[in-house]
């Protein structure tokens, strides 16, 4: 079995341990090995709680240095490299709604994924969720920013000329929408009625916004310095990354994980940590947990080797990791629940289904 990158007990773990120990008066030993040995009973309990809840797919560096796709149990056990393609880099895996298939993008190993262009790079691929029957769907630069439709038979894509819908069986375009300033990270809601993405048409760049497919009407969900939006299962809420302005002692600021109702009325912190840029938020199918990555380097996920992934209960939000003195001044009342630290990865996604087309 090939494990992506074993260095996932590093500083992130230490910061989480130190921070939670300091503020909760406990000592954690976050451990992503499937040994079941966790020094902190809260993390052990969380790992036990999620370990049988389906699978996580994510991109990570393989031992040969290229990006492959991996699956693992949500507690970090049973890691499998499901692509094993040294000649290619794979990224952006997304389970189909029934969990039987995955979509992803594939580029030559000589190329690098760009954190802002990755949805437009290389070829769109489909495979069984265990990696079997991988097939190229479109040519280089086609079907950009593809996102699964609710029944897994269509995808929504976005290019310069607009948003368009494609029937997978025939590859026919079956509809088109103005993209209304959306420019990256398109995602189709589970109920099929909405699209969310990153847009610049709401008075600030990098707003998270949604479009109603039936009317084409768009609204901002969170303005200014947001990205990587994804839907909750109820299609009424979004998880996304947000870098608030005017952070103390940090002109650039740290990117945090936030959630909001899709009408954009209220947004709340989910997880933040001074010293980490939190990206790649993905909610579990039942909306009880959330996955994310925490990188010390801005934009480091795609250009580096991913970042330690974290898993927490949404009922523990807001949680702040580490000392994060400045962030704690802004968010006084936090729950600081346990965070299960998982291997280094990029853009994780979660299904509660068993893997493989027949399961």
């Amino acid at each position: 079995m090939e494990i992506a990158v074993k260095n996932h007990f590093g500083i992130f773990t230490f910061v989480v341990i130190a921070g939670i120990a300091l503020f909760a008066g406990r000592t954690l030993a976050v451990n992503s090995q499937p040994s079941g040995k966790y020094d902190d009973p809260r993390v052990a309990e969380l790992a036990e709680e999620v370990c049988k809840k389906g699978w996580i797919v994510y991109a990570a560096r393989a031992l040969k240095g290229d990006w492959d796709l991996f699956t693992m149990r949500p507690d970090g056990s049973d890691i499998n490299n499901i692509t094993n393609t040294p000649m290619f880099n794979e990224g952006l895996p997304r389970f189909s709604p029934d969990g039987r298939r995955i979509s992803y993008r594939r580029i030559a190993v000589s190329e690098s994924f760009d954190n802002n262009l990755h949805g437009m790079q290389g070829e769109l691929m489909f495979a069984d969720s265990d990696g079997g029957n991988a097939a190229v769907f479109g040519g280089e630069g086609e079907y950009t920013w593809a996102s699964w439709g609710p029944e897994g038979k269509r995808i929504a894509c976005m290019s310069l000329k607009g948003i368009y819908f494609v029937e997978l069986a025939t590859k026919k375009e079956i509809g088109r929408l103005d993209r209304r300033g959306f420019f990256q990270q398109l995602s189709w809601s589970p109920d099929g009625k909405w699209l969310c993405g990153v847009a610049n048409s709401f008075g600030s760049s990098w707003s998270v916004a949604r479009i109603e497919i039936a009317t084409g009407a768009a609204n901002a969900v969170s303005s200014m310095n947001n990205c990587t939006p994804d839907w909750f299962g109820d299609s009424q809420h979004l998880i996304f990354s947000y870098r608030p302005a005017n952070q103390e002692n940090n002109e650039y600021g740290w990117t945090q994980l936030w959630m909001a109702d899709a009408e954009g009325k209220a947004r709340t912190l989910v997880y933040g940590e001074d010293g980490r840029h939190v990206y790649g938020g993905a909610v579990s199918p039942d909306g009880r947990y959330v996955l994310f990555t925490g990188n010390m380097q801005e934009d480091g996920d795609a250009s580096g080797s991913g970042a330690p992934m974290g898993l927490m209960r949404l009922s523990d939000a807001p949680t702040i990791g580490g000392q994060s003195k400045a962030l704690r001044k802004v968010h006084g009342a936090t729950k600081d629940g346990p965070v299960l630290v998982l291997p280094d990865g990029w853009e994780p996604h979660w299904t509660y289904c068993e893997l493989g087309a027949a399961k």
Partner: protein
Amino acid sequence: MIRSPIPVGRHTHISLLLLSLLCILGFCASCTKKPDTGEDVKVTTLGSIEVTAQLLEIRGKIINDPLYDYAHVMKYKVLQVHRGKVDGDIIYVGHYNPAEPRSSVADARVREIGGNLRKFKAMDIQRMALEVPIDDYYMGGIINKYFGESKDPIYWAIWTNLVIK
């Protein structure tokens, strides 16, 4: 004690004289910059619109962040329309990664873009090849500090040359 063969006062006078001459020469050189209409084969052929316009305002800070690409919308007064049609004499133009000199701004996301302008400066006059609206030609972050203030279309700058009067 060794005495200078030339009195110190005379040294000072010579230095000041040379400095003044250099300043005058430099000033004259800058005054005699060759007029340039900004015309070249790119600006006259790329895009569907070509204008000479004065950059009235750069609203907001030009961000120089290598991790993010974006277009920054700037306000211009149109002085002359060479090709195509513009709506009114005030236009809003989005420039890609404006911290970069135009000669080196093209990249994987935006390939056919350039010009000889090195730095955006308010009140400068530029000759630009444009397209409109920006969303039909560019898919990326846009910093538009005129949002909500103007409903005019945003033009997309393809080629930008400095005009010297």
